[in-house]
């Protein structure tokens, strides 16, 4: 009996070991290096000095190290802006993708696969190339402005490139598939008989949506939101290319620390702050999904 259990445990360990190794080597190990670096002194020419140094996290909150800096909550302002832009991206992608996902999930199977293919199509081209295409679209002599000017709708080219709006647009564009796919997976497996039951019991289309479809799709919405929120928060390519580096986000700040300021420890500390924010969001997600599951079982 005991040997059977031991064998079962061994088999479980054997089955889990590939994923454990992958997570350990490619996730936990780099993360640990980052954590250690976050508490070390920056080396003069990049790298780190192996001395304990507590100023990195304090600096994020605005505390001065007393030597090079005075109190200034500039980094908190960048965090606040990054959260605002990432949340805006989440809301817009959600509003765009929900109706689209509902519609696609109601189509016949052959059309479904076709639309899923369309959604993933942008991944076939490099992200940077696609963002450059947006520069060409948004610039003052781009086709949007040219068309509006030709129609007489505007007298002056409309300033779109290098604005916060362009950054949001770019992020929405990049992350739409990440919102669509979890939403679609959720709505697609939704039990149609529940909708019919709701109709049979006299609920109208709107009420059925609000009381049946919407609550049942919460896990899909939260899942999509998390998957969009996390990379939006750390994004630095979109603010660089479409925001003209004037709309600074945390990702840009981390990049600046590693590639321009030669301050690896501060960059590591910033990356860890992002990680902490992401962890909090994941915990919220788990609790929301658990509650939704409990609701379903009742």
């Amino acid at each position, binding site marked *: 009996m005991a040997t059977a259990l031991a064998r079962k445990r061994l088999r479980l360990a054997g089955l889990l070991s590939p994923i454990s190794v992958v997570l350990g080597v490619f996730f936990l190990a780099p993360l640990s290096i980052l954590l250690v670096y976050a508490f070390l002194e920056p080396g*003069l020419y990049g790298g780190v000095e192996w001395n304990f140094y507590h100023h990195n996290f304090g600096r994020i909150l605005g505390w001065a190290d007393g030597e090079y800096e005075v109190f200034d909550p500039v980094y908190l302002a960048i965090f606040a802006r990054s959260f605002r832009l990432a949340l805006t991206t989440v809301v817009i992608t959600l509003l765009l993708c929900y109706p689209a996902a509902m519609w696609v999930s109601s189509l016949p199977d052959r059309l479904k696969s076709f639309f899923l293919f369309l959604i993933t199509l942008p991944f076939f081209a490099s992200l940077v190339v696609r963002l*450059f295409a947006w520069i060409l679209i948004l610039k*003052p002599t781009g086709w949007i402005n040219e068309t509006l000017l030709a129609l007489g709708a505007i007298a002056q080219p409309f300033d779109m490139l290098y604005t916060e709006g362009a950054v949001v647009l770019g992020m929405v564009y990049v992350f739409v598939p990440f919102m669509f796919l979890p939403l679609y997976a959720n709505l697609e497996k939704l039990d149609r008989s529940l909708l019919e039951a709701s109709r049979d019991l006299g609920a109208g289309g709107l009420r059925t949506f609000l009381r049946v479809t919407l609550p049942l799709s919460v896990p899909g919405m939260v899942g999509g939101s998390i998957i969009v929120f996390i990379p939006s928060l750390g994004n630095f390519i979109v603010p660089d290319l479409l925001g003209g580096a004037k709309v600074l986000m945390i990702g840009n700040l981390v990049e600046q620390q590693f*590639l*321009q300021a030669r301050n690896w420890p501060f960059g590591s500390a910033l990356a860890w702050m992002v990680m902490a924010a992401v962890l909090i969001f994941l915990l919220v997600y788990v609790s929301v999904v658990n509650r939704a599951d409990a609701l379903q079982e009742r």
Partner: protein
Amino acid sequence: MVTTIRWMSGAAMHSALGSLAAAVMFGMTATAQGAGELNLYNWGDYINPELLKKFEAEYDVKVNLDTYGTNEEMLAKIQAGATGYDIVFPSVHMHDIMHKLGLLWESRINEHPDFKNIEPGFIRAKTDPEGSWCLPYAWGTVGIVYNKTIVPEITGWDDFFAIPDQFGGKITMLDDLRETLGVGLIMNGHSVNSRDRAEIEQARDYILARKDKISAFTYDVLPLVQSGDIAAAHWYVGAMYTVFEDPERMAYVVPKEGATMYQEDICILASAPNKENARLFMEFYLKPENPVLNVEQQMNGTPNAPAREMLPEKFKTHPGMNPSDEVMAKLQIFEDLGADLKLYDRAWTQVRTQ
């Protein structure tokens, strides 16, 4: 600490892809090594490919080229233990840093008879006053490239910042903390190597006061200047290739108030597997006809005096590439600031946040 991502030619899209790849593939494998090989590690688009072919043909050595986007990136990789590279092209202050860190090999290139071709003024590194370690490679100015169909003529920074109000055109500056804060320092009469907090804050405020006039901090702007979407941009002398391509529309000027300049040196690494071939490459580059090949494609300056004489007429006379002595005297070159770089980092973050 010049974090110039220097794309001397080619389309902006191409260069952005290159820099991105460089940034992402931080630890890419070094090229293979062998008897008849030479492995160069250079800035992206910073050497004429024809030159490499010529060297390969003359010496029967296979040349491999890998590229980086910033001095810091190159240093980080060499420090992290990347081996297999023979030659790197650090800026002068990075040459000093690498020397202090013991990463370089003494080539004694100054003992070669052709070393007389190098103008002594270009032996700039403080750690290498005789030029016995590294060979001066190329230099250039960082000025303003502009579209003449929008702005007829500009001569300096005051004209540059007046463009949005005067002509309704857009302007951009480089996404580089020392270059762009450097303009603020120059305009306030300070050294671009200032370590004084008050001076750096003054430079920050100078840029901040003009931030709503500056459309973007970016490198990827030449096609937008050519198309007229951007009227003028803070850019490198490499922009001259657009001027020769399209002289009716494009112009490049070294600002009369002063500007920064850059210089890179050819250095052989202490860890180089092919030191003899690397030294051969230095000797090859001392022959004037070879820097000429480079200048014709890169549009920058060469420290090789006979090479300068051999340049086509348009290179020798164009004002964009030949600033007056008065302007030349005002050019400043970046030095390493050590820990004081933090002052610039904070000021730059404030510029980009407020």
